[in-house]
């Protein structure tokens, strides 16, 4: 339980940083005329700020599925390196 509380405390600055981005994301989604449930579902299921903004554009412009795949992969490809970097901190 102590590690859970420590993790929660360590995560607060990140959460606060994303709060302002979340407002901008919600406003963009409403502006583009998306149904209310879609940005909510997008936020629950996706862990990517830039990707979510691109996703709103892709949905509102009725993009093809392969276009979605490549856009989101290109945006997230840096996290392959980030995860590889993280893996080195987890093993000893």
């Amino acid at each position: 339980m102590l590690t859970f509380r420590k993790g929660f405390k360590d995560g607060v600055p990140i959460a606060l940083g994303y709060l302002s981005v979340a407002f901008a994301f919600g406003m963009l989604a409403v502006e583009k005329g998306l149904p209310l449930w879609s940005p909510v579902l997008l936020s629950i299921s996706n862990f990517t700020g830039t990707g979510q903004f691109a996703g709103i554009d892709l949905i509102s412009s009725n993009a093809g599925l392969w276009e979605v795949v490549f856009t989101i992969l290109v945006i997230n490809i840096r996290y392959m390196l980030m995860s590889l970097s993280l893996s080195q901190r987890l093993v000893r």
Partner: protein
Amino acid sequence: MSIGKVLLVIVIMALCTYLPRMLPLALFRRKIKNQFLSSLLCYLPYGILAAMVFPDIFSSTASIISGIAGTAAALLLAYRKSGLLPVAVSACVTVFVTERLLELIGIL
């Protein structure tokens, strides 16, 4: 776009977001012995974040002077090992105060 296609796009997005993060962690469990590669991976997050912040940090405020002041405040506190939140809040407050001062002396 139909509801079904919106759902499909969200599912595809979730997969394309999650897999690049999960696969390197799940498949790669060894310690890298090569010193060049392991130091590259060690400093990589800082490099990526710095590339995302610079040079936008100077142009995203109302004046480049307040941008420089905010950057200086953040660098100083980060160098003194303050936490993420104090660094971010101090940089914001510094930018706000600097811009009010610039308005007072008529530059902004």
